[in-house]
C-alpha cells in the first residue's frame, strides 16, 4: 500500500487476483513439465528458429532452455534449477509438487480458508513427511550393486533405457575407481571428454586421462610405451620482454642481441628436461612425455622432438591435478629440482586424430585415482545430452555415498507419506488440518503423473496403490510396465534420500510463500533521484 501511494503508477494485483496470477503461472509450468517425469516420460526435441537442436528429458535442462515470461513461473523455475544445482536431480518433481500444492491449496482458499492457516498445515505436514522419509530410508553398503541401482533409476528418467544402462555402468565404475576408504569422492577428478564419432552406446570409461590436444610437431612420436610423465606449469616459449618503440629505434644488431639473450633463457629450461630424459631413459626401453600447462614454442618443440619426447602444451589447469592422481608424480612449477621422483608413469601414451581435433590418451596407469569418461556420439546434441546425464548419474552415486542410504522409488514414498498423513491428520486440532489434507493430496501428483505417462488410468492406479499400501506395511510403488503395485526394493528402483528431502523442504516453503502473496506489483523506483 505504501509503495503505491508513493508511486501511483505501479501496476497492482490484489488478494484473489494475486493468487490467481501465481496459480496460473505454476499450473502453466507444471503442464509443460508433466509429460517428461519418469522413465516413460516423453523426450522433448527443441528446435530453434535457426535450426539448432536440443534433445532432453531432463527437467533442469528444459527449464534452462525454455523462455519463461510469467514472473511466478520464472520464480518456480529458478527454485527448481537451484534444487538441481545442489543435488543434481529432482527438478521436474519440484515443479510438479509446487504446482500441485498451489492447486490443492486454492480449493480451500476459494472456500474461505485463510492462507495463513493453510500454510500452517503445510508446515506441520512437511515435518511429518520428513519423519516418514527417515522411516523408509534404507541404509546401504557402498557396493557396486547398490550404486548401480540408484544410478540407473536416475538415468532412466533422462535417456533411453538402452543408453541409460551403458552410462550407469560407466558412471559406477568411474566413481568406484576413485573411491578410497571413507574419503569423499571429488567428482572433478573424473574428466568428461567428448568425441564426435560412432554412437552413443560406445561411450566408455578410460582408466587414465584423455586430453583434447596433441603434439604440435610433425616429427614427434605418435605413440610411446612405458612412459615417464613430466607434468609442469613452466613457460617454454619465447616471450619478448624488450619493446620495439615506434619512437625510439634500435639497430637490428641490438635487437637480435636481446632476442638471443631471451631465447637462451628458454633453451636452458628445455635442456634441463632433455638432461632428465637422458638420465632416466638411458639403457632401458622407457620413453618420456612432457605435459605443460603453459606454452611451448616451435623451437622448443623441435629440440624435444629430436630426443623422441612427446610434448603437449597448454593442458587444462585441472588436468595438472588429475595427471598427478592418474599417473603419480608431482606437477612442477619450476625446473630447479627435477629428478626421477617427480615423474609419473603411464603404460602407453598415444594420439588419436579426428578431423581438426587431436586427442591424446594417457593409459595403463598403475593405480589411477583419476579417470576419464569418454563420451561418443554422432553429433553435438547427442553428446551434450550424454554429458548432462552423466553429470546427473555421477551426482546420484555421490549422493548415495554421502547419505549412506537410499529410499525406495517408483512413487513409493509419496504413497506412504499420503497414507501416514491421512491417518495423522485426525490428531490435529483446528482448521490447519485442512492444510495437512491438501498436502497429502498434493504428494500423490508424482505417482499420478507416472501412471499417466505410462498410459494407465490414473484413478484406478492410485486406488490400487492405496489399497495395497493399506494392507502391506512395506513401501509400495508403481510398476510402470504392468501398472500394478510392486515393492520397489525387489525391482531395484531407488532414489536419493537427499534429493527427496530437498524437494519436500523447498516445495513447502515456496508454495507457502506464493500462497501468502496478497499483492503483486510491478513498480519502478519510488524516487527519481538515484
Amino acid at each position: 500500500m505504501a509503495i503505491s501511494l508513493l508511486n501511483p503508477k505501479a501496476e497492482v494485483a490484489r488478494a484473489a487476483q494475486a493468487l490467481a496470477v501465481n496459480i496460473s503461472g505454476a499450473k502453466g509450468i507444471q503442464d509443460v513439465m508433466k509429460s517428461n517425469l519418469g522413465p516413460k516420460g516423453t523426450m522433448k526435441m527443441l528446435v530453434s528458429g535457426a535450426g539448432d537442436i536440443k534433445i532432453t528429458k531432463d527437467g533442469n535442462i528444459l527449464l534452462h532452455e525454455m523462455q519463461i515470461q510469467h514472473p511466478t513461473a520464472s520464480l518456480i523455475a529458478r527454485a527448481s534449477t537451484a534444487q538441481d544445482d545442489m543435488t543434481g536431480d529432482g527438478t521436474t518433481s519440484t515443479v510438479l509438487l509446487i504446482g500441485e500444492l498451489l492447486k490443492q491449496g486454492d480449493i480451500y482458499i476459494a472456500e474461505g480458508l485463510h492462507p495463513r492457516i493453510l500454510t500452517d498445515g503445510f508446515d506441520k505436514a512437511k515435518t511429518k513427511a520428513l519423519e516418514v522419509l527417515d522411516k523408509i530410508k534404507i541404509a546401504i553398503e557402498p557396493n557396486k550393486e547398490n550404486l548401480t541401482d540408484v544410478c540407473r533409476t536416475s538415468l532412466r528418467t533422462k535417456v533411453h533405457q538402452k543408453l541409460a544402462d551403458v552410462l550407469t555402468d560407466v558412471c559406477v565404475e568411474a566413481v568406484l575407481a576413485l573411491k578410497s576408504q571413507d574419503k569423499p569422492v571429488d567428482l572433478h577428478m573424473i574428466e568428461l571428454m567428448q568425441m564426435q564419432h560412432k554412437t552413443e552406446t560406445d561411450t566408455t570409461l578410460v582408466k587414465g586421462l584423455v586430453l583434447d590436444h596433441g603434439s604440435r610437431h610433425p616429427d614427434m612420436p605418435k605413440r610411446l610405451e612405458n612412459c615417464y610423465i613430466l607434468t609442469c606449469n613452466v613457460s617454454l616459449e619465447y616471450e619478448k620482454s624488450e619493446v620495439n618503440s615506434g619512437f625510439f629505434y634500435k639497430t637490428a644488431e641490438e635487437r637480435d642481441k636481446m632476442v638471443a639473450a631471451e631465447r637462451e633463457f628458454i633453451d636452458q629450461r628445455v635442456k634441463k628436461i632433455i638432461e632428465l630424459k637422458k638420465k632416466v631413459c638411458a639403457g632401458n626401453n622407457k620413453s618420456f612425455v612432457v605435459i605443460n600447462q603453459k606454452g611451448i614454442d616451435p623451437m622448443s618443440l623441435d629440440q624435444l622432438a629430436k630426443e623422441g619426447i612427446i610434448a603437449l602444451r597448454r593442458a587444462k589447469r585441472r588436468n595438472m591435478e588429475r595427471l598427478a592422481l592418474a599417473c603419480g608424480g608431482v606437477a612442477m612449477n619450476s625446473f630447479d629440482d627435477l629428478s626421477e621422483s617427480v615423474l609419473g608413469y603411464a603404460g602407453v601414451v598415444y594420439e588419436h586424430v579426428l578431423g581438426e581435433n587431436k586427442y591424446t590418451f594417457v593409459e595403463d596407469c598403475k593405480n589411477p585415482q583419476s579417470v576419464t569418461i569418454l563420451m561418443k556420439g554422432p553429433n553435438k546434441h547427442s553428446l551434450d545430452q550424454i554429458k548432462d546425464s552423466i553429470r546427473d548419474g555421477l551426482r546420484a552415486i555421490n549422493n548415495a555415498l554421502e547419505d549412506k542410504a537410499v529410499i525406495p522409488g517408483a512413487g513409493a514414498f509419496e504413497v506412504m507419506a499420503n497414507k501416514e498423513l491421512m491417518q495423522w491428520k485426525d490428531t490435529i486440532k483446528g482448521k490447519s488440518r485442512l492444510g495437512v489434507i491438501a498436502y497429502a493430496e498434493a504428494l500423490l501428483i508424482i505417482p499420478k503423473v507416472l501412471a499417466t505417462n505410462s498410459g494407465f488410468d490414473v484413478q484406478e492406479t492410485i486406488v490400487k496403490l492405496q489399497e495395497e499400501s493399506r494392507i502391506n506395511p512395506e513401501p509400495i510403488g508403481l510398476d510402470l510396465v504392468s501398472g500394478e503395485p510392486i515393492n520397489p526394493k525387489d525391482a531395484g528402483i531407488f532414489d536419493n534420500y537427499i534429493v527427496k528431502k530437498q524437494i519436500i523442504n523447498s516445495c513447502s516453503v515456496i508454495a507457502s510463500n506464493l500462497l501468502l502473496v496478497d499483492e503483486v506489483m510491478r513498480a519502478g523506483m519510488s524516487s527519481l533521484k538515484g
Partner: protein
Amino acid sequence: MTNTQEILTLQFGHYANFVGTHWWNLQETSFQYNSNTPSEINHDVLFREGHNSKGLVTFTPRLLLVDLKCSLKSLPTEGELYESLPDIAHYSGVNWDENKLDIRKEQKQHKNEFQQDIDNPKTLQQFSQKKYNLEDSTEVWSDYLYSRFHPRSVNIINEYQHCNKETPFDTFSLGTELWKTDFFQEDFVDKIRNYTEECDHFQGFHVLTDCTNGFAGLSSSCLEDIRDEYDRKSVLVFPTIPSFFPDNEYKTDREQVTSIMSDSTRVINLLLSFNNFKQHSNMFSPLCTSKDGWRQPGESRQFYHVNYNFKLPYHSSAILASALETITLKYRLKSNTFSTMDLYADLTANGRKAVATSICLPFSFNCDAYLIDCLDQWEGPLYQSLTPRCTIGTNRVMQHLTISGISESKIKKPYNFAGKQKDMPAYKYNSVKEMLEYYLACTTYATASHVTAVEKPLTVKPPYPDIFDKIIGSDGNVNMNPRSDNTIIESVPVLAGLHSGTELGEMLESLHSEARKLKIARFHQFTIERDEYEECLNDILTFKEEYEDSYLI
C-alpha cells in the same frame, strides 16, 4: 622474426558483436584470391586455418563471442561450415522411443535477402555489387554477417534472453555471477585454451565488450582469469557504448522513470568495468560515436562526407569497426615486427592505460588533388575522436596513427609539373608516412606522432552500410558530379589513430563525477557494498591523476 604472432578476439555483448561483425566483414570482403600482388596484411594474426569434417580447408576468425539467448535469429550456434544442420525429418538414434518424442519447433527464422544471397553459391559472387536495404532488415548482427564462423566461436547464454524486460541482463553483478557458472568456468575457458594451444607464437587478446550492461561484469571477470592464466600475454580492450538506447526515447512518465534508472545503472556499470580494465588490461580505449557516452550517449559526432543514422547500431558500429580495422593494421602487417606490446610501451607510460581512438572516415580529397594540397588546405582537426567525453588535443600527446588507401602517386605532383607545390616545405617528403608526420609535427606542440601508411584502402562494399555523401565516388575520392544511385563505393582511404594525453583525464573525471552522485545502496540489483563502491570511485580518481600533466616534458 617473421613468425605470425596470433591474436585471439573475444566479443562480449550485442553491441560489441555489431562492431565485431562489421570488423570481420571488412576484412573478409577485402580478401583477394588469385591476386598476383601478395597482400600487405598478414591475415593469420586474426584468422585461423583449419579443415572441416569433409576435409575442406576453412579460414575462420580466431574468435569467441558471447551473446544472449534469442539474439542470433537465423544463425545456427554451431554454424554450417563444419557440419550441415541436422535433418529432423530423417533423424534416427537410440535416444528415445519413437512414440515418446515430443518435437517443439520454434517458428523458422526468415533469412533476409543478403543472407539468402550469400547462402546461394550462384549469387555469392555478386553480392558485393548489389544494394541491400540492410538498414530495414537488420535487427541483430547476424543479419549482415558475411563471415562464417568456426563451431566453437558462438557462445549463447541461456540464463538471460535478448531484450527481455522481465529478467534483463543489465548489471555488472549479474555478469560476474554468470562467469562463475560451469558454462564459463569450464566450457568457455576451455575454448580459449583450445585456440591458444593451436598458436605457435600467441601474442594476446583483443577484447570487444559492451560496458553498459551485464556484459561489463562478464568481460571483467574473464579478464581477471586471463591475467591469471596468461600473465605475460597482451590484453587490449575496446569497451563499446551504443550511440542510442531505445529507452531514452520515452513517451510516458513511467517510461521516463525507467529510462533514468537505466541511465544510472549504465553509469555504475561503466565505472566498475573501467576500474577493472585499468587493472587487468594492458590498454583500453572506450568507443562510442556520440559525444557524451554517459549518462546518455548525447549528441552524435559528425564526420565529413558521412551521413549516418545514430539510432541504427548497424550504422554506428560500422564507423567503430572501420577505426579498429585501421589502427590494428599497425601490428598486422607482413612487413614489420611491431607488436601490441610495443604499442603499449609508447602509449601507456605512467600507467595511462586509457587511450582515445580517432578516425577520419573517409580521408577523401578531390580526385585530381594531392595529399600535400589536401593537408595544406585542411581546416579544423584532421580526425574525430571516437572516445566519449574526450576531444583529442594537439598539446603533449603521444599518438600512433595509421593511414590507408593513399597511393604514392597521390602524394604530390611530379617535380616537372609541380608549380607552386615545390615552394611548400612539405614537398621534400616522398612518402605518405613522412608527409603526414611532418604535418602533425607542424600542427601540434610537444607531441610524438608515429604514422604507419598502408597502401590498401578500406573496403566498404556491402554489407558495409552506404553512409557516404553522394559526391564520394566508387574509388573513395571526392568527385565533381554526384555518383548515380546504383554505384557501389568499393573502398575509401581512411586515417585512424590512438592517442594518449591529458584529455583522457577529463573523460575519467566526468565519469567519476556522474558516478559519485549515485547512491549505490539504492541500486539493490548490484550486490556491491558501499565501501567497495567508494573505493572504486577513489581508484578512478587516482587513475585520473595519472593524466595530470605537470611533470611530463
